[in-house]
């Protein structure tokens, strides 16, 4: 008990996530909330941040940092209706910084909301029948599921399963309603309870994704818990269960590492909830609550061993897992543009660079999506690649959508490299950022595009991902080219990740700046152009050519090695 981490104390004293949030909101003398409350607010989907571009200036002005809040609205499988879209869009312009941010977990983020606007914003999100509860915090996060698939029925079933699971694992506390929606206080918090989580919730965040092969858009192996749809003659017969994936690590801290999930076995669709609950409660009871850097499920599994873990799951779920089926993944990028499913419905996947929906000069994707939401009759689906799918368009409605897409300049020519790129948010909002990410990757890609053109690799899809720190929010350790911020203008370069996301990459160069990145990649790309085998992926090539040694397990990711 004694050496529990600080956050554990805060959770325990929080009376099921109340903390002193109400008082913090009422304090007009600061734009911040009480320190302990910054931990509690995460469970409500709210992160305290400050505009880091202004920090130094405001300190000199004897003003507190420009505190702003990031609000995350979760939506299982990234699905929302046009009405909900319009509601969120309105909030982006009234209370947030005039942009909508599509995240790598198919959710929405608002940035730049000030304290006194939190209530109205959260209120409006809930009025739109969406929630921010458990979008962050030591609980199950937004549950991912593929936004598009050639098999509409399978997509529907996985999306439904994701929604049911999200619902089952959603916190039961009345605090959220009480604090944000003016709900009346429960007589005593004894009246409520957290059947699955208990009063201190999980030791750490917990993430679940569903995948439909051959598409691995959700990076299922980077998740704590994964369900890979197994389809036999167009029927969903069940899922392969994977567990223990995760990206987060710390520079130079060997005991922290990214890890790919292990495959546990096969289950039928109705076994999803009991098995998921068993994994969650196992992590609840055995996860490390003393050291947050060591608290994710991946470490729990490595501590106790996979066999113990599997046995524990089966005991708790009362389910025998069958042997896993063979699965093959071919790609992770979204199928951009129009795609028709087997029922003849059309889906348009719009490329949104780094997920930032904004109006920038000619390119007015925020306004454009608003215009589309006003006429669209289907739904919208966010992708794990930070893109947006305009889903369920009838053949004769396509022309109208196309017209709006071009009217608002929403489609910019982009190389496969750019289409396969991801960048986390990073500066100026992210409190953990060590370097630029979202604001910098686009320029870097301009330069890399030239390199590729010179080597005639223009239309080679290469998975490139950048994050502003080693936490890995854009899943950089499963990229073919991973760039992880070390300090302002300086990155660690990782190479050799599998195109399908089933091999981690390895540290190749440390502390490289813009020019250093280009200089490091130029010869490799030239070599790739010269010596690649037929449709050999860049990530596979650098390994085969011996530029980096393949990574067998997480701890090797930070060890530079060639062969």
């Amino acid at each position, binding site marked *: 008990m004694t050496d529990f981490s600080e956050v554990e104390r805060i959770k325990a004293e929080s009376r099921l996530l109340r903390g002193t949030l109400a008082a913090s909101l009422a304090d*007009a003398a600061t*734009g911040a909330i009480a320190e302990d409350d910054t931990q509690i607010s995460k469970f409500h989907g709210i992160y305290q941040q400050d505009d880091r571009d202004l920090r130094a*200036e405001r300190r000199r*002005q*004897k*003003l507190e940092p420009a505190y702003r809040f990031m609000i995350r609205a979760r939506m299982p499988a990234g699905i929302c209706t046009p009405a909900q879209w319009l509601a969120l869009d309105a909030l982006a312009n009234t209370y947030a910084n005039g942009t909508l941010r599509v995240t790598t977990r198919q959710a929405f983020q608002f940035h730049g909301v*000030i304290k006194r606007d939190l209530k109205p914003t959260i209120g409006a999100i809930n009025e739109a029948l969406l929630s921010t509860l458990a979008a962050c915090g030591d609980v199950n996060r937004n549950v991912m599921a593929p936004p598009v698939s050639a098999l509409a029925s399978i997509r529907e079933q996985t999306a439904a399963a994701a929604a049911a699971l999200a619902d089952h694992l959603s916190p039961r506390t009345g605090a959220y309603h009480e604090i944000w929606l003016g709900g009346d206080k429960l007589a005593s918090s004894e009246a409520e309870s957290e059947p699955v989580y208990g009063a201190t919730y999980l030791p750490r965040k917990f993430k679940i994704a569903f995948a439909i092969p051959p598409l691995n858009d959700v990076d299922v192996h980077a998740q704590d818990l994964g369900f890979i749809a197994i389809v036999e003659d167009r029927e969903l017969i069940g899922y392969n269960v994977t567990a223990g994936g995760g990206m987060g690590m710390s520079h130079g801290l060997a005991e922290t590492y990214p890890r790919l999930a292990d495959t546990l076995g096969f289950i039928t669709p109705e076994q999803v909830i009991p098995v998921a609950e068993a994994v969650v409660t196992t992590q609840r009871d055995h996860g490390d609550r003393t050291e947050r850097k060591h608290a994710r499920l991946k470490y729990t599994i490595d501590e106790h061993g996979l066999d113990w873990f599997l046995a524990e799951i089966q005991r708790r779920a009362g389910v025998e897992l069958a042997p896993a089926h063979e699965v093959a993944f071919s790609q992770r990028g979204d199928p951009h543009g129009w795609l028709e499913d087997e029922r003849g419905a059309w889906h348009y996947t719009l490329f949104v660079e780094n997920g930032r929906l904004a109006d920038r000069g000619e390119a007015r994707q925020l306004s454009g999506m608003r215009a589309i939401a006003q006429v669209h009759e289907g739904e919208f689906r966010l992708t794990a690649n930070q893109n947006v799918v305009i889903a369920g368009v009838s053949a004769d409605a396509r022309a109208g959508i196309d017209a709006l897409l071009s009217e608002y300049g929403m489609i910019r020519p982009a190389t496969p490299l750019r289409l396969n790129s991801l960048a986390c948010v990073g500066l100026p909002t992210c409190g953990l950022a060590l370097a630029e990410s979202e604001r910098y990757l686009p320029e870097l890609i301009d330069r890399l595009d030239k390199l590729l053109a010179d080597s005639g690799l223009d239309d080679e899809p290469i998975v490139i991902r950048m994050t502003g720190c080693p936490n890995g929010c854009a899943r950089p350790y499963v990229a073919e080219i991973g760039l992880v911020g070390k300090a302002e203008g300086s990155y660690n370069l990782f190479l050799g990740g599998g195109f399908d996301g089933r091999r981690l990459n390895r540290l190749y160069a440390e502390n490289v700046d813009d020019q250093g990145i280009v200089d490091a990649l130029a010869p490799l790309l030239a070599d790739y152009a010269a010596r690649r085998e037929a449709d050999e992926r860049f990530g596979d090539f650098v390994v085969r050519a011996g530029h980096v040694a393949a990574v067998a397990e997480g701890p090797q990711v930070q060890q530079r090695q060639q062969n």
Partner: protein
Amino acid sequence: MSLALEQSPLQTEEQQALAQLASAWTDQQRLWASGFLAGMAAAAQPAATPRAFVQPVATVLYGSQTGNGQAIAEQLAAEAAERGFGVAVKSMADYAPARLKQEKVLFLVISTHGEGDPPDDAEELWEFLGSERAPRLPDLRYAVLALGDSSYANFCQTGRDFDRRLAALGATELRPRIECDVDYRKPAGEWQRQMLDIGASLAPTAPDASPRPLLRAVPAAPRYSREQPFAAELLANQKITGRDSTKDVRHLELSLTGAGIEYQPGDSIAVVPRNPPATVGALIEATGLDPEREVEVDGERRSLAGALSEARELTRLSPPFLRAYADLGGIAKLSEMLDDPEMLRRYLEGHEVADVVAAYPFSIGAQDLIDTLRPLAARSYSIASSPLAHPDEVHLTVAVVRHGTQRPRFGAASNHLAALKAGDRADVYLDSNPRFRLPDDPAAPIIMIGPGTGVAPYRAFLQQREAEGATGRNWLLFGDRHFDRDFLYQIEWLRYRKSGLLTRLDVAFSRDQADKLYVQHRLREHGAEVYRWLNDGAYLYVCGDAKAMAPDVHRTLIDIAASEGGLSQDQAKEFIQELRRERRYQRDVY
């Protein structure tokens, strides 16, 4: 303090008179007086009866905000004693209006503040005189010394008001009222002389009435002054409003090293400004005069441009200037305006000398221009630091004055200061304010109301209380336009709140929501708490805007006393008046 009266040779009434007289004295005066009396006894010949203590022949009442009038009044008393007769000196705040009926001779020293308003300590007496309760005063004889500043629209208003009102109540004027402008020393000395002669002539045992040259006819000049300021080095000049703010407020740090200036929290620093080059340029252009042209100014010869930037008031219009200019140029329109108070007030606000010259041009000579203009006055700034926390330094919080639409107009002192860089020097001197002081009792709670730059002295207060380890509770009410950019010294207040030094911190930001929100609203909102603090002996301070804020806060305080204390309006007013008398309600407003 009670005197040991048992073995006293004096008659009771004599004793009372002595006690009463002494009560109005400063300690220094008491010491001086005891020495004086002892000296008289020692010097007494057996033949001549020692000039024992005498009844005061007159009461000197002063209404004084920043201490000038008080000093003049106390000086008068000391000189009277030196000439062998007594006068009773009192602040109007400590004077029960009912006593007026018994008064025979009254010497009034009264300044004007706000926008032609009485100083705080005179308000109650003024209200009484104006009301029906005011008695007829046929037996009263009086004289008025009015202190003022002719750059304000209502010059010496309060002095004139008292004079008119006393006459209306049937009292007789002993001497015509004397009005003092910013440099009050000479006229005040003259008035003291007149009063002393009157006093001497009234003294029962005809004392030596021979008019001796007054030793200290006026308060001893401070070490530094408008004429001999101290050139303080600027240590820091930091804008403390955020980038989106419509205001430019500066935190300035000045070094007093070597000046030997001793100040207390609550004091102000007077800054001798230079006129902004643009302002000087605009005037020279409007007149078409040669900037290099030599003129005589304050007894020395210098260039017109030099005289205009360093010796004459260009940014503040004043009636005397308008009058002189109108007469010199024979400008009827201006003379009309001068006779229409409303028009005048409106014109004074927002216009400057160059505007007048441009609007009513005539070929004025360089010397004439200099002679019609007023001397450039110093500007005061509340000291925002404590001598204990920052020895040999003063910190100032200066709002840079820029206004005007078609042509930008600049405030002289604030822009002069804002333009200084570390290492530059500013001419300053101490403008002490004995009427704005922390309680002597370190355990006494204090409520500090200071929106905008009015918060400056509280930074000094809190630094002082922290340094002294004072245990009293501290409550700060601050307000401005926008929370995120105009919250002056925000991180310091938050640190004090965290450390516990600041017990309460309440803020009102007027433009962050649909309807305006000001400190007085917060005050009202927490009325019960305010009233509780006051009953716990809290001292209440108001600093900042005199036009709107101070009166609104004052009304609110009366409301609070009424509603929370269940008092009638009159009782509530009395409750607040009583706070004033006890010096538990102090204001420094501008």
